[in-house]
């Protein structure tokens, strides 16, 4: 990657860092794991950026890379937790929010946590306002299958949310 491409990559990455944070938040409970996976996702994005031809939105491509990397990391039984310390904000996956929202988000995250790995990916993409086509493209499911699964996921999540309320 030349310096121009690198600068463009950093610029585009910075417009969507929230995606990486949310993928890490949804799949990993341990802050050390989250930081490790955050770094791995940034690295995988950097590595595959030259192959990004702009056929899909940058954010859609980013979800694909981030979710694939998270899935690979979950499969590994032991991940190295030795990392060089980075700037403080990297370890701060959940920044300050008003307390009621924080509480609601906490309930939502714990409800999502009960879902399977694939369902978590689908619901994350749904919450992030992706279309069914985009969800299908990222996951490799058919559009019909995405909608069927979302109905089931919604039902399951709503039950969980009602329980916590």
């Amino acid at each position, binding site marked *: 990657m030349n310096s121009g491409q690198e600068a463009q990559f950093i610029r585009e990455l910075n417009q969507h860092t929230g995606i990486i944070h*949310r993928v890490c938040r949804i799949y990993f409970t341990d802050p050390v794991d989250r930081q490790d996976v955050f770094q791995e996702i940034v690295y995988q994005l950097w590595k*595959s950026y030259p192959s990004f031809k702009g056929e899909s939105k940058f954010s859609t491509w980013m979800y694909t890379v981030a979710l694939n990397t998270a899935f*690979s990391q979950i499969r590994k039984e032991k991940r190295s937790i030795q990392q060089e310390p980075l700037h403080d904000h990297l370890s701060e996956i959940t920044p300050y929010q008003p307390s009621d929202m924080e509480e609601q988000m906490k309930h939502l995250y714990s409800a999502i946590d009960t879902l399977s790995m694939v369902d978590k990916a689908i619901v994350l993409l*749904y919450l992030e306002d992706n279309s069914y086509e985009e969800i299908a493209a990222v996951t490799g499911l058919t559009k019909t299958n995405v909608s*069927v699964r979302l109905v089931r996921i919604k039902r399951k999540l709503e039950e969980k949310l009602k329980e916590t309320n």
Partner: protein
Amino acid sequence: MKSLDEAKKCWSESKENKQVELPGDEVKQIIRQRIRKEKKVLFEYFWASYIWQFIIYVAMTNMIIRFWGDLRIVVVSLVGILMYIPFTIVFIKKFTKMSGKTNGSFQSLRSNLKLQWNKMNEFFVFKRRFDWLGIPVSCFILTVIIFKLWVPGGWEEHLTGALIVYLFAIIAFLIATVIENRKRFKKPLYKLSLIIKEIEEEQ
């Protein structure tokens, strides 16, 4: 918050507070650090296997030179070398293919998981085939060398002892191989197949 639509609203509101900028220097630092880590992981597995094969070559060559007049030793050593040469070549090729995590491109979750499963399974099938042939032959060569070098009279005069050493070597190799295969291949393949199964159900 009772419905997913409310959750979605709450989610997008919380998103506003979550955009954190990563300075370019930090991105570069992460990349440098990850490249080092990736190299280290590859290095550990690759060199552990490669050094074992290198030891085999050195030991066999040493035996051929040292016992040049002894046809049996020369043949056994040559068999060892000839057996390991194709393995080393295929090992390097298949390992490089398996460890090429992304090849610079990502497809959908489903395609990537299948690709990873296929690559890992292909390497595992190859390794298992080699284990079936390689373990008994390696142990036989090892036993012959041990008795030739350190037991007066060689294995011919201590057939029972040689057989016991051979069996112990086979058991040790088998245990190590089973543990390694379970950790590096069977468990990851099983986990991958579960996720693939989940994605493919109802498709």
